[in-house]
């Protein structure tokens, strides 16, 4: 054996193993150096509080306004429709709890506060049901806010109704109907499950075998008391891109006043974020998935949509998110979104080529490997496969040992010990869900990285299949 002669290929391989091949960009992205640079002055120099009247404060306010209008420009909305939060999860929680807190609730019929009249009129022309013309309205004794107005006193209007016993209960816990896809992120699922426990009715929309929602199903599920519809823009596990424009259209065309929320956390770096085109009422995204800082999120709140804040205090962000604004992170978020959107044309094309190259090779690298998600209607950077007969955590840790960083939808990696709800919703079996591997590519991913993975993957699969109790 000649140890002096290590081939250049082998050298590269060792290097790659040492440095590691990060293929988990959907989990989080590194900070773009340009974003870091943009944030730099706001730690030590421009540290002012935007609420302060003095010069330091005014300068911070200017920076904040500028970041807000940059994002508004990309989202094609008004600056005041942009609310900064402490992350994507918070933005989604604000959207879900905020939009469901301010309802009139009667007999399971609920509509948004400011629009209750039109809602009744439009959803049932002529008010033909009769029972809708005579009823009690009781509003939850909680502040509503728009434009910083926290002073709304609770109101109670009583009209004769045979349903008074239900109304009393509803006055404490407003209830209504919510429609969500089965494949929403936990940041949407869990808040909605919590509402379900409070008495809200939730319709979970099925997806097809590729993870797609049928807009017709949304139409069928709509009810006069539907308060919120939530369908994510692109799925975090399988990358499937949902028909948001079409879903928004069926909701609008049906005359239903339900608020339409989309979780755009995975989409923000790769897809069109024009809220006018999308036709959504609420849209959430965050910094950590688009090469921006962590701990910063954003909720687009369409003018006219009223939300109840989760966090009360100094009344920042139009009263919807109190707390001193995280200026460096907000600057970073705006810069990250700006860069991602500017570069997405070329970057998406590059990633799609890499993605399809990898999918084609990976499916053939060992027997019994299947693709999860759609072949084309998927995020440019997402690959999700199931390797039958082996478990995802074991695969992930074997790959980790080779310097390859990926994730899995297997139960064994989650604290809940449940298989991925997304993969099960596609109709995948538990075995298929347990053997899932997600590779998500990013700006630093090269074809050589993927070739290295394709070199390692078959051996890892073979070894784990050998010791597996389940023979395929």
């Amino acid at each position: 054996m000649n140890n002096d002669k290590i081939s250049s290929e082998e050298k590269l391989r060792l290097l790659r193993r040492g440095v590691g091949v990060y293929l988990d960009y959907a989990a989080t992205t590194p900070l773009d150096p340009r974003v870091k640079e943009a944030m730099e002055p706001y730690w030590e120099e421009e540290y002012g509080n935007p609420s302060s009247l003095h010069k330091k404060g005014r300068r911070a306010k200017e920076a904040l306004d500028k970041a807000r209008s940059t994002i508004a420009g990309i989202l094609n909305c008004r600056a005041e429709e942009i609310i900064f939060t402490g992350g994507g999860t918070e933005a989604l929680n604000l959207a879900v709890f905020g939009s469901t807190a301010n309802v009139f609730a009667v007999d399971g019929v609920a509509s948004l506060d400011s629009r209750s009249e039109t809602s009744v009129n439009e959803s049932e022309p002529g008010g033909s049901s009769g029972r809708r013309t005579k009823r009690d309205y009781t509003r939850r004794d909680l502040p509503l806010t728009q434009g910083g107005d926290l002073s709304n006193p609770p109101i109670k209007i009583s009209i004769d109704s045979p349903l008074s016993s239900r109304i009393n209960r509803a006055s404490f816990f407003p209830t209504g109907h919510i429609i969500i896809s089965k494949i929403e992120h936990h940041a949407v699922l869990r808040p909605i499950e919590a509402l379900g426990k409070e008495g809200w009715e939730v319709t979970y929309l099925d997806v097809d075998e590729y993870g797609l929602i049928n807009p017709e199903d949304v139409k069928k599920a709509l009810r006069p008391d539907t308060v919120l519809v939530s369908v994510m823009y692109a799925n975090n596990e399988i990358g499937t891109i949902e028909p948001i424009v079409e879903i928004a259209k069926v909701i609008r065309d049906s005359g239903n006043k339900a608020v339409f929320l989309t979780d755009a956390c995975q989409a923000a770096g790769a897809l069109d974020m024009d809220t006018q085109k999308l036709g959504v009422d609420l849209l959430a995204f965050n910094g950590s998935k688009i090469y921006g800082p962590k701990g910063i999120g954003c909720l687009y709140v369409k003018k006219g949509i009223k939300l109840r804040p989760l966090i009360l205090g100094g009344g920042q962000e139009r009263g919807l998110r109190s707390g001193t604004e995280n200026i460096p992170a907000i600057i970073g978020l705006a810069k990250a979104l700006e860069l991602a959107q500017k570069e997405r044309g070329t970057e998406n094309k590059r990633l799609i080529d890499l993605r399809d190259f990898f999918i084609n090779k990976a499916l053939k690298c060992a027997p019994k490997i299947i693709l999860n998600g759609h072949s084309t209607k998927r995020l440019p950077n997402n690959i999700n496969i199931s390797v039958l007969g082996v478990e995802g955590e074991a695969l992930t840790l074997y790959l980790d040992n080779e310097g390859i960083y990926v994730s899995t939808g297997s139960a064994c990696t989650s604290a809940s010990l449940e298989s991925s709800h997304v993969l099960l919703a596609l109709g995948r079996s538990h075995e298929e869900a347990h053997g899932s591997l997600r590779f998500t590519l990013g700006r630093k991913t090269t074809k050589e990285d993927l070739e290295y993975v394709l070199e390692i993957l078959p051996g890892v699969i073979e070894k784990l299949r050998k010791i597996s109790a389940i023979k395929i």
Partner: protein
Amino acid sequence: MDEKKNENLEGDVTNQHTGESWYYSDIAKDHFFNPRNFLADDENEEDYDAMGMIGNIACGDVMKMWLKIEPKTERIKKLKWRTFGCGSAIATTSMFSVIVTENGGLTIAEALKITPQKVTERLGGLPNRKIHCAVLACRAFRKAANDYFCKTGQEKRIIKES
């Protein structure tokens, strides 16, 4: 970082020597990457005296164990296994096979006394939510032992799972 404290957390187990944090202890990691005594593809299941299986695919773990027993002494000459499951499921089955067969092998009666705690200890600890893997390994062995009792006409010794 205090190792004991860390073991009680959901995630990592910290290496007490290097302080480096990994998902499993060094011993568990070693058994995971270099599993001992698994039944290779070219081996014949028929060569073994008893087999036990536990778990189901929905939960994410399936363990199978095969035993080769010396009839007179009931000493376990070989314990082979196959596991579908996460890293700790693989590591615990591997460690179980070592405990049972080391130093000339335990008798079935002795091996039945192995507790999940013992397996976990030998592995240098497991993350809390992975302890059930050690429970599964012990149960897989009981199944295999029962199969042996059944095949050798010792129905009285069969252990019923509660």
